[in-house]
């Protein structure tokens, strides 16, 4: 990668751009190295997954979405989230021409899947929406739960 910097036949700014491009793709390759369903930084909604000894908890960051706006589907240990977020700006009556300065929020239809640990029991799912976060709690299968093993003195 660094040898390319010495190639002065291209304009200097081009060399920096190429180095940045190479760093970007190396970085992206590291991120894509995981599960192919892992999203890029601009995915919506963002998801956190945690695990306790008894259940798996999924936190879905879905601001602006009420409980009925997201469809949750569980197939084995694959959780799929599906829904649509409309542009809230559409609700605002337009006063003259509108100038946009930032348009960073996600709008439109989304669908993403998250692979969960295989220890989950699909029959024990609970989901709750609050303050734009949907918390999904899935109990673990009985045999996956930690169990104490008695050690007897011989």
């Amino acid at each position, binding site marked *: 990668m660094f040898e390319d910097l010495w190639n002065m036949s291209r304009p200097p700014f081009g060399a920096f751009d190429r180095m940045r491009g190479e760093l970007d793709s190396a970085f992206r390759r590291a991120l894509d190295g995981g599960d192919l369903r892992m999203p890029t930084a601009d*995915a919506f909604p963002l998801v*956190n997954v*945690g*695990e306790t000894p008894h259940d*798996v908890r999924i936190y879905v960051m879905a601001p602006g979405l*009420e409980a009925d706006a997201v469809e949750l589907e569980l197939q084995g240990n694959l959780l799929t989230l599906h829904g649509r977020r409309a542009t809230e700006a559409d609700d605002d009556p337009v*006063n*003259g021409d509108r100038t946009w300065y930032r*348009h960073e929020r996600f709008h439109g239809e989304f669908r993403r899947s998250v692979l969960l640990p295989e220890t989950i029991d699909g029959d024990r799912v609970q989901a709750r*929406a609050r303050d734009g976060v949907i918390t999904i709690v899935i109990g673990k299968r009985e045999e996956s739960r930690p169990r104490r093993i008695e050690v007897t003195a011989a």
Partner: protein
Amino acid sequence: MSQTQDVTVHGTEGRGAREAATLVPAVDLYEDGAGVKLIADMPGVASDGLSVEVRSRELVIEGAVGVDMPDDMTARYAELRGGRYRRVFALSDDLDPDAIEASLKAGVLRVALPKKAAFQPRRITVESG
């Protein structure tokens, strides 16, 4: 940025590390005849954790993430890492900070900054003669 990592969150230690990270909320920001409208995504923030402040020429929005997480939970996969949102915007003189209006619903903050009366657009009639 997404990573898979086994991080054990124990009591205050993990919570402290989580709260130290500040997140930049995604915003929609536009202006029309009435003034500036800001819409910010702050999932997990309730009204008791929200702060909208106007300082001289600056609008500061802050929110604390209040999602309950059990103490014995291990993080398996975290795309959102951080305990609070914060973003600062420069305000121009034509906006009236006393007339600011803010509302929070389902983790979305909406702020309306009307223009001072003197700066509202006025149609100028052109007389022909």
